[in-house]
């Protein structure tokens, strides 16, 4: 695997190399412009033919979305996660449908749940699981599910709020507590 990464490094710019916590897992961060070339190189020359998953992670603190492409080589029995970061304010990227047709659905899901636009994906604007959604994409970290649920459906049982036993115990017989 190290040889493959070396070869990759010779051709492309690898931003960051990480070793997974498991023997056969490697994580590579590449520049977003070279992603298509990296993926097609890995698929055609290095036997990483199986794209298991396309995923998105919201790093709201850094104002970035991480796109992860999880590859598997049946011959070498190695997992490779290729990741790129895109701007969270302008969440746009290009589809990889031409390389891996099944990515169409994954991208469609990411479009709906994170609002990342995949240029070239014809079905990404169709509804995937949500219907008539009028809020921000729900998997973004700044979408508050509890608040939405309370506003939308009302608080089923306002009593079910968690009781803070700590506070009750501290307050008990304690009118002279300093704080």
């Amino acid at each position, binding site marked *: 695997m190290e040889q493959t990464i070396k070869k990759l490094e010779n051709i492309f710019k690898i931003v960051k190399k990480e070793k*997974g916590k498991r023997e056969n897992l490697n994580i590579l961060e590449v520049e977003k412009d070279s992603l298509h070339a990296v993926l097609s190189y890995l698929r055609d020359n290095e036997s990483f033919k*199986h794209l298991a998953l396309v995923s*998105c992670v919201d790093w709201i603190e850094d104002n970035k979305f991480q796109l992860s492409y999880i590859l598997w080589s049946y011959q070498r029995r190695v*997992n490779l996660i290729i990741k790129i970061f895109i701007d969270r304010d302008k969440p746009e990227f290009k589809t990889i449908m031409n390389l891996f047709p*099944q990515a169409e*659905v994954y991208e469609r899901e990411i479009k709906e749940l994170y609002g990342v636009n995949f240029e070239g994906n014809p079905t990404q604007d169709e509804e995937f699981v949500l219907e008539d959604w009028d809020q921000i994409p729900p998997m973004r*970290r700044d979408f508050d*599910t509890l608040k939405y649920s309370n506003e939308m459906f009302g608080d089923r049982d306002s009593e079910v709020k968690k009781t803070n036993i700590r506070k009750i115990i501290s307050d008990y017989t304690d009118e002279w507590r300093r704080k």
Partner: protein
Amino acid sequence: MKEFKREDREVKLFVGPQHPGVTGNMSFEITLEGDTLTSVKTHVGYLHRAFEKLMERRLYIQNFPLVCRICVPESDTNEENYARALEELAGIEVPERAKWIRTLVLELSRLQMFIRWMGGIAGTMGLSTAPQWAIGDRDYILDLFEELTGGRIYHIYILPGGVRRDIPEGFEERVLKVMDYIEKKLPDYDDLIFENSVFKKRLIGLSKLDPAWVEEIGVTGPVARACGFPFDVRKEQPYEIYDKLDFDIITETGCDMYSMALVRRREIDLSINLIRQIIDKMPKGEVWTPLPNVLYWKIPAGETYVKTEATRGEFGYYVVTDGSDKPRRIHVRGVSTPHAYTLLERLVPGMNISDFSVTIVGLQTCPPEIER
């Protein structure tokens, strides 16, 4: 009312969202020319429970009651994946015996799922005797689960660090008894289903795959194995103690629905075999490594992708942690996603409408894992 003209040869139909067999609620928009399908569009969303989002606001341990509900009939693969991902990221060692028990649970789960599927595929073709047998026989395995884990469907049994309880006394014998019982019943299923000439007539040649598609669109599990590809996570990346068990990957070469059915039928034999091996070789010892205080358990930042061989294929969890006490992102790779979309769209053109639901069940699509 729109006047129907002979020129409007194409008709659009909605199938679902009721269960089109034993899969779960999903709907299909199919286009017909006569009774021949020309295209299909899959729609999910009827079972969306926002699990991935919910998991991001809960403690690691609190997600166990959630993950097991991602694929209802096969909860253990979810627990296994999630637990293994956390163990990997947090660096927790699992005691040897716990690994064996986990494998036992996973195989029992696989077995009951395939038995249920046997009933399902026959049921979709109108052979309603089979589902009744299957549900009845599957219940004996659920009884075992109840005894071992305390729950019949949602086990919440595999936790990071091991399993929740040790095997109760005499459990091994009862497992073997159920295995004997099921093995005795299997020839009946063969007579009723797999050697049934109607079943064969309908399935042989149905939904014939081009083997090139398997690698192209990421098909896994029995579907890939029916095309001769020896793809099985249990062998290619042995988790728990699969490397200590003696078995071969089951493949067929027909590339059609009947081959897929045969793969699954042979998987039942394999599971029974594996369960016997596990019970035979299971070591003694601890079943649990203590976790840190679960109410404040923080896992160092990192990411991993773990996978398990579910009945449908490669079931994966992509887990990203950020060092806090809650996961940053958990993405579940539902096996059925490529099957129910990309593969189905390629299989459908030219298919007879009566074979459509058989195809869906034959691919063993499971919408809850597509939408989570």
